[in-house]
């Protein structure tokens, strides 16, 4: 996908995202207990862990839905720890949600149009119709997830699997450097999962992906590296097969 400007196209030779000692407490309960990790630019990283390990909380911290209790979040060499979520999105961070999170009353095309629009700050251009480039972007994003034919349908009328595809199209239309995918295949049938896997695999390699997922086949098919979270801490981090055979990981999943 073409990048919007040269600044976004810049390469970050080291890591695109770095988390430094993140803690998140809810009342007295520690959901995250000192998480540090680094994701390389262009990498496809899976984040796994048993239920309640803090994966979605971590996503919420990264995307700015929640503030961390302590710790730092560095994105593209910039400290974004206290940045509101819309500013993070402007820096090229996109996310999908575990539960479908669409504008159900709007059409498929309008959903993507919202994401593709160049003016998100209520300026004069907020009143303009999408220009040629925005239109291309919308078409392109819809084509990538295979929702071209459903473009005029209200998002409400899409099937569950299609709604998840639309989530992806929305994320793509923001022209991100990085997408956080929160259980993209949750609730899908095997056939729908296959289709989704194909879509994700075909995404441009320069978009960094951070994926929470339970489906191990999907993870092994997609991820370059895997990070394992357990009780709010990183217990393993490495190549898929190394992690799979890690003793602590086995224990976390099997031992109760």
């Amino acid at each position, binding site marked *: 996908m073409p990048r919007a400007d040269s600044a976004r196209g810049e390469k970050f030779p080291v890591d695109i995202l770095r988390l430094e000692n993140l803690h998140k407490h809810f009342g007295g309960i520690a959901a995250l207990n000192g998480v540090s990790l680094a994701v390389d630019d262009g990498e496809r990283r899976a984040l796994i862990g048993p239920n309640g390990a803090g994966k979605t909380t971590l996503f919420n911290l990264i*995307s700015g*839905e929640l503030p961390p209790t302590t710790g730092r979040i560095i994105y593209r060499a910039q400290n974004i720890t206290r940045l*509101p*979520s*819309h500013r993070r*999105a*402007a820096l090229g961070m*996109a*996310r999908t*949600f575990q539960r479908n*999170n*669409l*504008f*159900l*009353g*709007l059409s498929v095309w*309008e959903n993507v*149009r*919202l*994401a593709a*629009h160049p*003016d*998100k*700050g*209520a300026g004069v*251009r*907020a*009143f*303009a*119709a*999408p220009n040629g480039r925005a239109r291309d972007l919308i078409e392109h994003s819809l084509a990538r997830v295979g929702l071209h034919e459903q473009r005029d*349908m209200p998002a409400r*009328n899409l*099937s*569950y*699997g*299609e709604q998840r595809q639309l989530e992806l199209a*929305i*994320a793509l*239309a*923001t022209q991100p450097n990085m997408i956080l995918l929160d259980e993209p295949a949750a*609730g*899908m*049938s095997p*056939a*729908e999962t296959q289709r989704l896997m194909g879509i994700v695999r075909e995404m441009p390699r320069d978009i960094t992906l951070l994926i929470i997922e339970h489906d191990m086949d999907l993870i092994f098919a997609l991820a370059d590296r895997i990070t394992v979270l357990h009780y709010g801490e990183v217990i393993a981090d490495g190549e898929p097969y190394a992690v799979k055979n890690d003793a602590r990981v086995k224990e976390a999943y099997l031992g109760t």
Partner: protein
Amino acid sequence: MSSRRLLSFTLALAILILLIALPAFASTFIVKTLTEVLIFGILAMSLDLLLGYTGLVSFGHAAFFGMGAYATGYLAKNLSPNIVVVMPLALLIVAAAALVIGFFSIRVSGVYFLMLTLAFGQMIYALAERWTDVTGGSNGLSSLPRPLIELGSARIEFDDVNARYFLVLAFFLLSYAALWWMVHAQFGRVLIGIRENEPRLRAIGYNTSRFKLLAFVIAGVFAGVAGALYAGFNRFVSTSDVYWTQSGQVLIMVVIGGAGTLLGPVLGAGMILILQNIISSATERWQTIMGLLFIGFVFAARNGVMGLLKQIFQISNFKFQIVKPKSESEVSNLKSKI
């Protein structure tokens, strides 16, 4: 589909012609009533931008209506009755106030937003009560000059009922067109997005606070337009025009007509005003009856008149609906539930 578009176009044209031709055959009473309906129609549409489109329940909208009316009245008396001079000034004042009140109110959402707009609305009311030099206090501003338009050598005076009706009609059509354009532009889609799923909109990069503030100011300005017209039409402004019952009444106009559409609130305004006229000529206790009607409405017809019309329309267009086959996951989900 094109036949449907043709139908709505014909219908709109017919209504427009009817509105323009009306003074030729209707009685003064009807023209006056309709003028009032159009003024409150603008007010109700402007509130709907917040309520129906953005999903913000404002209970202080009368503040901007009243401010527009007071500012216009005061300026007409003390500066000039020329609309070209007075209206922009009045709207500037309203916009500034909406900016300040909006800045604080949009920091919170839901019931808090409602409480704040109500509190700020009553602040404006209290201001109107006490700032007697400008507002006339509880006596109000009375015997306001008739509005006129003076541009260079051109001069139009709005001395009779029909002339004022056309003035209001022109502003109504302009307001309707402007609001229609806004809600159909990207801006309107963003407002709907805020109503449906604000966190998601932020996550894709929207500064939703700024959109909400902008919507608040725009809604305030159009309420100010209605207020300015009201001052010229009624030639009397009083504190009851900024009281919270006025805000509540506009809210009910929007909801009765159908929130989330532009013409619904206008219909709602028409219904409420006409009902009020009828009931208040029959009994002194018309407020009780209006209150009871509101209560009854909450229980009876929650989707408004427009909702009702839409339902009828949809049923008649039944054959156009495509039934989508369920996806595999939905089917398997269903199976697992059974």
